[in-house]
Every structure is written in C-alpha cells, then in structure tokens.
C-alpha cells in the first residue's frame, strides 16, 4: 500500500507545482516581457518487478516550459526597430518643420520686397522708407531666429543621441549579466525561465534603439550583433560593447562600437539610433539651404544697395551685416533716407535702383527657395508619418502574434486552475484511500 501512498504524494506535489505556475501566470497577466509558463508533468517511469508485473510510480513535475516562439520574438524586434527609426525621424522632422515655418520666413522676405515696390511708387516718402527698413529688420530677425532654432535642434539631437547610446550600453551590460546567470542556472528551472524572460525583455528594449541580429546557444545565452549578422558585436557571452555617438565635421552622425580592444563603425538601419542619424542628415541639409539663401539674400540686397544712391544723393551703403554664421544677420542701415532707391546720377524721385532690387529678387528666387525647403521637409515628414502608421500596424500584429503564443489568457488559466485543483484534490483522496486501506489491514485482529 506504500505504492499507493507515494503515488498520491507525487500527485499532490506535482499539482502543487502546477497550481503555483498557474498562480504565477495570473499574477503576471499584464507584466511586460512575461512569457506564459507551463509545468511539464511526466509519468515516473515504472520498473518491472521480478514477477513481471507492472509497478506504477506516480507523476513528477519535470520542469518549467516557457511558451516562447523565437521567430515571433524576432519579428517583434525587427518591427519595433523599424518603427522606432521612423518615429524618431518623424519627431525630429516635426521640430525642423516648426523651426522652418515658425518664423514666417518666406512671408517676411516677401514683405521686404513688396515694401520696396511700395517705395518705388513714392521714392521720397519717409514713411515708405521706414516701412521698408522695418521689414528688412523683420526679415533679418526671421532668418536669424530660424538659424538659431536649427542650431538648438542640432544640440538637442546630440544630447538625445548621447542618451540613446547610454541606454544601449546599459542594456548590453544587463544582457551580459543575464548571459552569465544563464550559464549558472539549471536548465528548466524557474530561475532559468525568469532569466530567459529578462533576456527577451532586454533584447526588445535594445531593438527599440537599434536593429539587432540575435543568436542563442543551448543554454539560451544571446549573442547580439548591431545591424545584420555581419555587424559589430554588441554582446557575446559575458562581454558587452560600449557604443559612442560621433558627429563628424560635416555634421553627419555615426556610431562606433568598442569591445575589448576592437573598434568598429556601425550604421544601424533600424531603431532610434538610425532615426537620429537620419534626422542629423536632414538638419544638416536644411541648415545648409538656409545658410545659402541667407548669404544670397544679404549679398544680393547689399549689392543693389551699394550700386545706388540715397535720398540725399550720396552713394548707398550695405543694408545687412553678417556675424559668425550666415544667418546671424543684423541690419546696419539705420537711416531710412539711406535706402538707395535711385541709381547713381538719378534725382530724389528716381526709383530705378528699386527696379534693380526687384530684378535681384526675381533672379535670386529667395522666397521660392525658402518655400521649397519647407515643402520638401513637409513632404518627407508626411511620407514618414504614413510609413510610421503602417509600421505601427505591422508591429502591433507582430506583438499580437507573439502574445497569442506567449501571453497569458485568464480564461485558459481559470480552466487550468480548475483542472489542477481537482487533480490535487483527487490525489489527496488517493492518499486518504491508501491510509484507509492500510488502516483496514492494521485493524485485522
């Protein structure tokens, strides 16, 4: 009868473990990165006795299985990296858009030239001259403010890039520790399952920063490369790389990966790091175009100014002065009478130099260049926003597909709970029956 007792006891032990696994699943139903766990219930293999009759030995909880699907997890990582890259670009392009359109740059440059046209109708009017000088100041300050806004974005991007690589380095170090833990944990143990959950969670966070290619060994230890499988290694075994954010002289951003004594340049194609590098490129080209227009505008207007004659018949002087950057523009002409409306030799009512200004406006195409810059940025932003919407849907479905395997469903857990509770109660009844039977033997007198 001791067989029956031990079989009952094994059942009680097994279903206790099974019930606590269900409880763990329920408790972690909304925990991010948690993978549903099940207990492998195995029959204890029986031994054949000398008489040849079969002996039964009960059940045992063989180990804990994580309901993980590495391919679905990889899909989630890939789609997260794609989405993070696009969303980062969208966010920075949005800031560039605000910088470019916030100062009404094109409108103010137009106002300057229309003030010139207005002055041409009445070249001796001091009011029209003052208006033109005011609109010159307004255009100059708009160019300056736009330049400063782009510089501010550049410096914000730098600090975001630094923060992103710091996070990535932290995650790499965590993963190396998880790898170390996995080397020591017994396979199938609850500890190993928790470490594997942590590993997947860290990998998912890494993929929001950069696209990664992941391979795992038999113990579940991850080797992570940045980009595709030929990229520089971020983590292998217990060794983690340190990534640094580098901005070169032309303003473009790259990343270098240092591990042990090796260094490599990485160009991630996914994740926030790729979005940051892409945004840096966008900012550099917007800044270059603003600089070009600002230089062309100031030199164009100054050239017209200096070739003409003021209201008092003296030679015209430059209207704009440029500081350290091409957009650091100030208006140096303070006297409205100093606007050179007339050509040399023309009288006070001559406006032919303003016609030259209008010609400079037409050939310089300043306003259309500024509008084109805003529009091209807006078109890129609009296209990226659409891409982000699509990638967001792809990622959501990848997450749903993974969670359909790994996620906890409370209804399933309720069914398991009932099932294991009943099995537990039945096993307890077996023990009681064994006791009763044994008791009836003891009761024989």
């Amino acid at each position, binding site marked *: 009868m001791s067989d029956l007792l031990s079989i009952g006891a094994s059942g009680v032990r097994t279903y206790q473990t099974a019930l606590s696994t269900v409880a763990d699943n329920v408790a972690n139903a909304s925990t991010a990165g948690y993978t549903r766990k099940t207990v492998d219930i195995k029959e204890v293999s029986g031994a054949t006795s000398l008489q040849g009759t079969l002996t039964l030995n009960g059940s045992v909880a063989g180990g804990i299985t994580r309901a993980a699907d590495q391919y679905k997890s990889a899909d989630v990582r890939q789609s997260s990296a794609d989405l993070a890259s696009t969303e980062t670009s969208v966010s920075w392009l949005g800031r560039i858009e605000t910088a470019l359109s916030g100062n009404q740059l094109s409108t103010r440059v137009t106002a300057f030239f*229309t003030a010139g046209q207005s002055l041409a109708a*009445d070249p001796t009017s001091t009011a029209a001259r003052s208006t033109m000088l005011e609109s010159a100041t307004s255009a100059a300050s708009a160019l300056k403010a736009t330049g400063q806004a782009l510089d501010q974005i550049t410096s914000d991007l730098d600090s975001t890039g630094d923060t992103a690589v710091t996070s990535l380095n932290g995650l790499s170090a965590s993963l190396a520790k998880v790898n170390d833990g996995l080397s020591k944990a017994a396979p199938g143990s609850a500890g190993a399952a928790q470490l594997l959950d942590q590993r997947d969670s860290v990998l998912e966070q890494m993929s929001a920063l950069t696209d990664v290619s992941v391979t795992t060994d038999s113990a579940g230890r991850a080797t992570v490369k940045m980009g595709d499988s030929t990229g520089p290694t971020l983590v292998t075994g217990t060794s983690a790389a340190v990534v640094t954010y580098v901005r070169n002289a032309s303003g473009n951003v790259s990343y270098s990966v240092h591990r042990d004594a090796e260094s490599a340049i990485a160009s991630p194609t996914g994740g926030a790091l790729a979005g940051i590098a892409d945004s840096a490129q966008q900012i550099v080209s917007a800044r270059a175009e603003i600089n070009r227009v600002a230089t062309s505008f100031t030199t164009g207007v100054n050239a017209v100014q200096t070739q003409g004659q003021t209201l008092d018949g003296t030679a015209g002087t430059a209207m704009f002065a440029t500081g350290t950057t091409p957009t650091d523009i100030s208006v140096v002409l303070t006297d409205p009478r100093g606007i050179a409306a007339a050509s040399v030799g023309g009288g006070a009512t001559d406006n032919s130099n303003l016609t030259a200004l209008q010609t400079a406006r037409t050939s310089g195409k300043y306003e259309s260049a500024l509008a084109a810059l805003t529009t091209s940025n807006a078109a890129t932003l609009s296209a990226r926003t659409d891409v982000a919407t699509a990638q967001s849907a792809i990622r959501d479905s990848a997450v749903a597909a993974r*969670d359909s395997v790994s996620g906890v469903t409370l209804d399933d857990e309720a069914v398991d709970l009932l099932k294991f509770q009943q099995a537990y109660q039945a096993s307890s009844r077996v023990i009681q029956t064994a006791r009763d039977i044994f008791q009836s033997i003891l009761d024989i007198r």
Partner: protein
Amino acid sequence: MRIATSTIYTNATNAMSSLQAQADKLSTQISTGSKISKASDDPLASARLALLSQNTADNTVWTANISLAQSLVAQSDSTLDSVQTQMTRAQELAVEANTGTLTDANKQSIATELQGILASLGSLANTKDARGQPLFGGSGSDNAVNVATDGTVSIAATGNPSSIPIGDGSTIQATDSAQQVFGGITTTTGTTSDVFSIVSKLITAVQTGGDIGTAGTDLTAAANQVTNARASLGARGSRLDMEATAMTATATSNEALRSSLQDTDVTTAVSDLQKTMTILSATQASFTKLTSLSLFTYLS
C-alpha cells in the same frame, strides 16, 4: 487565434487613442476653419499656398500702387483741364487783340489779363501731387517750372518722371514732366518753344500795339499740345482702370483657390466628427463588455 488578455487591452487602447486623435484633429479643423495647420498636413497644398501668399502680397502692393497712379492721373487731368480753360481764354484775348478798333487802354487791359493767365499757368504747372512732389516734375525733385520776378516762366523739369511698378515687370509713367506737357511746340518760324514763351510773346506783341501776327497761330499749337498731353494721360488712365480690374479678378480667383486649398469644409468635418465620436463611444462600450467577461467571474 488565441488572444492574450493583455492583447485585448492593448488593442482597445490603440483603437481608442487613434479615434481620440482623429476627433481632436477634426475638432481643430472646425474651430480654426483651416484644414492645414502645418505644412506636413498637405505638402502639395502648402507649397501652392506659399506661392499664393506671395502673389497676394505682391498684388496688394501693386493694387495700392495702381490706386496711387490713378489718383496722379486724375490730378494731372483736372490740372490740365484748368490749364485748357486758361489757354482758351488766352486764345479769345488773342482774337480780341487783333481787332483794329482797340484803344491803347483796351490793349493794355488785354495784356494785363494775359499776364494774369501766364501767372496762373505757372502756378498750375507747379502744382504738388499727393506725394508732395511737383505733379509735372521730371527725374529730379526740383520745381516743374521756375517763375522769375518779372513774371517770366521757364521750364525746369525735363526727362521722364519715375515709373511706378504696377505688376510683375510692368510699370506705368503716371505723370508727365513739364517739358512733356508744356514744351516741345514747333512754332510757325520752325523753332521749338513752350507754352509759357508763346504766351509771353503774345503779351509783348499786345503791349507793343503791333500786329500779333504768328503769335495767335503758335497759341493754337500750344493749346493742341496741352490737349494731346491730356489725351495721353487719359489713355494711361484707362490702362490703369483695366489693370485695377484685372487685379481685382486675380485677387478673387486667388482667394477662391486659397479657400479650396485651406478652408475646412465644415459640413463634411462636422459629419466626420459625429461619425468618429459614434465609433469611439461604441468602442468604449464594447471594451467595457469584453473586459468584464472572464471565467474567473463564474468561479466560486
């Protein structure tokens, strides 16, 4: 497919936040009246709006310039009308002076009236325009004519007055210089003279009591010159009227285009907003029902 409990919550959250965002966007479009709040909302329309806004700014200043030019033309016209009145009176006096029965006193009185006419002509020629400049000024800002202490009037303003920009590459000379209006008259002797010299010559002829001779013919030529100048201004006046009409038409069509690109179609937007809010409240209701459904509810 097996649906994880967390997926139910994530999906519902995503759906509701996207509906909220849509409702917010529509509500902003309705309240601002503009369906484009930033360039990336519609890059193509924004590019066209930027061009339109530049056109509108240009047209506004050109329209103002056209108004100014119109007022200058009108002022020139009314001034030349007064000049013509004076010229007509001078012609009448010239005819009267030619009558042989006049006494010296009569001739003297005619000469005095002619001197008055000359002074009026000089003063009319020096009329200031709306800009405070001589109406018949030339390329400089000097007086149109100089009036000497002895009453002699001589033309000072020569050359072309500045043209006023009234369109893209299009300008109009809204006024004429004194030389163009009063000068360049070919006399009977073949020399070139001006209105003031011809009137002065007539005065001298009347004062000396002799035959005024060719002075009357020259005076007619002078009157014709002024008439021609007035006709030329009239032609420019009609061109300005046409330009002004064209500007108004352009402004109207620009505004129609701007409105179609930028303005919210309130009827559609309100209906879309209503639809979005209906879907949102249905989503909220179904979410509440779905999440209250759990097997655990039935375990006791």
